[in-house]
């Protein structure tokens, strides 16, 4: 059905695009989404009347007759590929030249700043009223700009220009994310979102240690307790010294890694999605309740306290930031960590490089009786792309999104792209396939089983999949010419291995062994004004309980949490739930 929304007056396209006609052939669902317009043959054959009722469809890749200049700002990281030319800056990204050639769009950066300083610099730009045409926003800034009425309505531009691939991405979750970022029927931003199950908590554990001590991977909290205890007391690394501990934990108790989310989930407690605010689960009466103050938490805290006393947690965990914990993981001082699917990419790859015997495996989190259920958000979206109201060609932003997705096709794949100055994560706006990881998983495994030497995929996912496939092959061939063994293992074990990070996560997804965080709205008014105070209260109380304060302090914490603004937050969240939540 998407095939109809293709330009009826497709302009003659630039060489780079017309030269390739490979995209039309494939028979799976990518055929319907292949950018027919990019090949003259396809576009002429499909220039049937537009099916979109709202607007006339336009060529998603059309070249502007006159150069359109688009201003952007960027927070960037160093290019990940070491082969990228030295001293390259985002304004010299080779993608921009291709963009100019294909669409006659010229990107000018108002400023470029390392991503860690982006927020600071962006708020200055806001304050001095100097906004770029295309805006990369987090939820908070999106909300601000929306309220000040500074965002362009993208409804029409999207309907007319979005490429079939882009539309497919946006529709992959039933339009849920798109709807979240529209207001009064106006589409104000295009969200970049991912599979929410990427947030599933799993347990990473050293299989080689388990084997040495003749233990089985734990499935219940009780077993985990025994294993962790053995990791402390029975010298799992066989070096004759009592220098190991059980479970990795860093000082911010709820964080993006090496934290306690998965641990509490094992008790059926759902305190947080990783930030300072509570997670919200459906209570018995159908209302949302904050997981942070439920009685199940107490049981978890009791166990943590005992773990601290017995040395299963590091005595100085309260001093350790994520870098210090990573040091312990890499140095082989700790053998268990809660976390997400990506740990093999970082930091476990270094652990494997350091000690080739290190054999990390992923398992579903242990629960009270049998494996537990992890918390999973309803939507996983870090940023959105919006367009300033003053921009003359809002559709250029949509076309740039099309462009980036299009660049994933095999015809553009170039193993030497890094040397030529292509840095994909310097190109904005860009949106990934929300199901990227699943695509990689299936496609690479398919290729492995068929003993292929190359990925045969023909759609826009080619580049990503091919990259992981090569790393996987290198891993099996013990080829360390491009990257270390640990790095190759990391690529393989996080995304491809059936018992690896994503492999285990998708089994959990299939089993439906999860609990949803029901709240996905913006922080409520009281969270904005009181949230950090409540967070301070929580960090202080929990840390003290873990380090030995009476567990009944938890009840005091709950009382203060509620009186310092928690009750209001409960009210606000439930108001939101009854009015705005998409159920």
């Amino acid at each position, binding site marked *: 059905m998407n095939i109809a929304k293709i330009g009826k007056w497709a302009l003659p396209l630039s060489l780079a695009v017309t030269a390739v006609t490979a995209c039309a052939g494939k028979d799976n669902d990518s055929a319907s989404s292949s950018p027919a317009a990019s090949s003259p043959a396809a576009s002429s054959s499909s220039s049937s009347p537009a099916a979109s009722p709202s607007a006339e469809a336009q060529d998603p890749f059309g070249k502007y007759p006159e150069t359109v200049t688009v201003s952007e700002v960027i927070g960037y990281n160093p290019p990940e590929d070491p082969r990228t030319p030295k001293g390259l800056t985002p304004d010299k990204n080779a993608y921009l030249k291709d963009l100019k050639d294909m669409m006659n769009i010229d990107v000018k950066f108002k400023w470029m700043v390392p991503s860690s300083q982006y*927020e600071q610099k962006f*708020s200055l730009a*806001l*304050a001095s*009223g100097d906004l770029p045409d295309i805006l990369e926003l987090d939820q*908070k800034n999106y909300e*601000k*700009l929306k309220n*000040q009425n*500074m965002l362009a309505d993208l409804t029409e531009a999207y309907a007319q220009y979005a490429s079939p691939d882009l539309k497919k991405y946006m529709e992959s979750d039933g339009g849920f994310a798109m709807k979240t970022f529209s207001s009064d029927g106006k589409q104000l931003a295009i969200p970049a979102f991912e599979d929410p199950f990427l947030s599933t908590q799993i347990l990473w554990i050293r299989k080689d240690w388990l084997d040495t001590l003749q233990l089985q991977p734990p499935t219940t909290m009780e077993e985990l307790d025994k294993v962790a205890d053995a990791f402390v007391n029975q010298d799992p690394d066989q070096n004759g010294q009592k220098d190991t501990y059980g479970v990795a934990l860093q*000082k911010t108790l709820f964080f993006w890694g090496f934290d306690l989310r998965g641990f509490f989930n094992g008790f059926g407690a759902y305190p947080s999605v990783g930030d300072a605010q509570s997670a919200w689960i459906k209570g018995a009466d159908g209302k949302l309740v904050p997981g942070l103050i439920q009685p199940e938490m107490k049981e978890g805290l009791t166990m943590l306290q005992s773990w601290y006393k017995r040395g299963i947690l590091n*005595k*100085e965990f*309260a*001093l350790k930031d994520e*870098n*210090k914990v990573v040091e312990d993981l890499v140095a082989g001082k700790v053998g268990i960590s809660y976390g997400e699917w990506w740990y093999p990419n970082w930091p476990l790859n270094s652990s494997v490089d350091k000690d080739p015997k290190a054999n990390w495996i992923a398992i579903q989190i242990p629960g009270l009786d049998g494996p537990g259920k992890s918390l999973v958000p309803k939507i996983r979206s870090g940023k959105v792309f919006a367009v300033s109201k003053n921009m003359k060609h809002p559709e250029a932003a949509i076309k740039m999104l099309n462009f980036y997705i299009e660049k994933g096709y095999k015809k553009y794949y170039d193993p030497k792209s890094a040397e030529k100055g292509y840095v994909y994560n310097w190109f904005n706006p860009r949106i990934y396939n929300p199901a990227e990881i699943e695509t990689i998983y299936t496609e690479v495994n398919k290729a492995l089983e068929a003993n292929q030497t190359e990925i045969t995929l023909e759609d826009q996912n080619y580049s990503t999949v091919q990259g992981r496939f090569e790393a996987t092959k290198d891993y099996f061939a013990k080829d360390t010419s491009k990257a270390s063994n640990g790095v190759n293992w990391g690529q393989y074990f996080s995304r491809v291995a059936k018992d690896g990070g994503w492999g285990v996560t998708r089994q959990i997804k299939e089993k439906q062994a999860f609990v949803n965080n029901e709240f996905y709205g913006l922080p409520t008014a009281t969270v*904005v004004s009181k*949230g*950090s*105070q409540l967070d*301070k209260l929580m*960090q*202080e109380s929990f*840390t*003290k309980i873990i*380090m030995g304060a009476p567990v009944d302090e938890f009840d005091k914490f709950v009382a203060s949490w509620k009186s*310092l603004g928690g009750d209001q937050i409960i009210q606000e969240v439930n108001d939101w739930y009854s009015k705005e939540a998409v159920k």
Partner: protein
Amino acid sequence: MRTLKKDWPLHVMVWPGVIFTLIYAYGPMAGLVMAFQEFEPLAGFFKSKFIGWDNFSYVFHLPDFGQVLWNTIIIAVFKMVLFLLVPLILALMLNEVTRRWFSRFVQSAIFLPFFLSWTVLGGIIIEIFSLNGPVNGILSSLGLEPIMFMLNNGWFRSIIIGTDVWKGMGYNMIIMLAAITGIHATLYEAAEVDGAGRWKQMLHITLPGIAPIVILLSVLGLGGILNAGFEQILIMYNPTVYEGADVIDTFVYRLGIFSQQFGPAAAIGLFKSGISLALVSVTYYAAYKYNNYRIF
């Protein structure tokens, strides 16, 4: 009028500085109105709503503000005193060193930590005082119980103060050394003729000679009474020592006030500036009135 005519070359000399100060220091001060506004960057200074003293009362009524203010003053006062004493003692000790290469080497070394940021140093210091660190290593070799320094409110404060002084002592030490160098050599010669020993020379010549600089540094130090060191504490502290080490700046930062709430942040800033200015001007006029001495 007559004085103006006589003094005009002096006025001319001051004015370039005045102009820069007017533009780049006084200009932005217009932004202090934020302290009285519900400031919204997108709306700007002119359209943001004025709310009187609400920002101040919001900040002062935050839970724990009293404790935090107290921590700030305690830590700042210790730092203030030590930032004078330690560099003074070091400068005097260096002044007694006769081998010039040694003196130069020590001076350079003491100035070194000043070049490293707290982001770099914080991790190193935490490690030094950790259970596996060298300090506990020494304790255990002496047969003492290990101490979790960084998780103990009392120790943590001392470490914050000590390491900050360690990092910054080179700065004031160099100022004092320069002042010592400025003392007339003839004074020492005269003292030697009178038979005064090294100790007496130090007491009666060196110390009085650098007194003006020491007084200046202490008065300006007073201005920092509410600055206990933001970056350092933020990087080194943890929830178990909030009680003793949370200071105004970290507190306000952690409450997200710096990043989101411009009005209260400006109010805090204005409050601190006001206190500093008041303290410094009182001492300035006291010195002038009772001693007829102008500190600057």
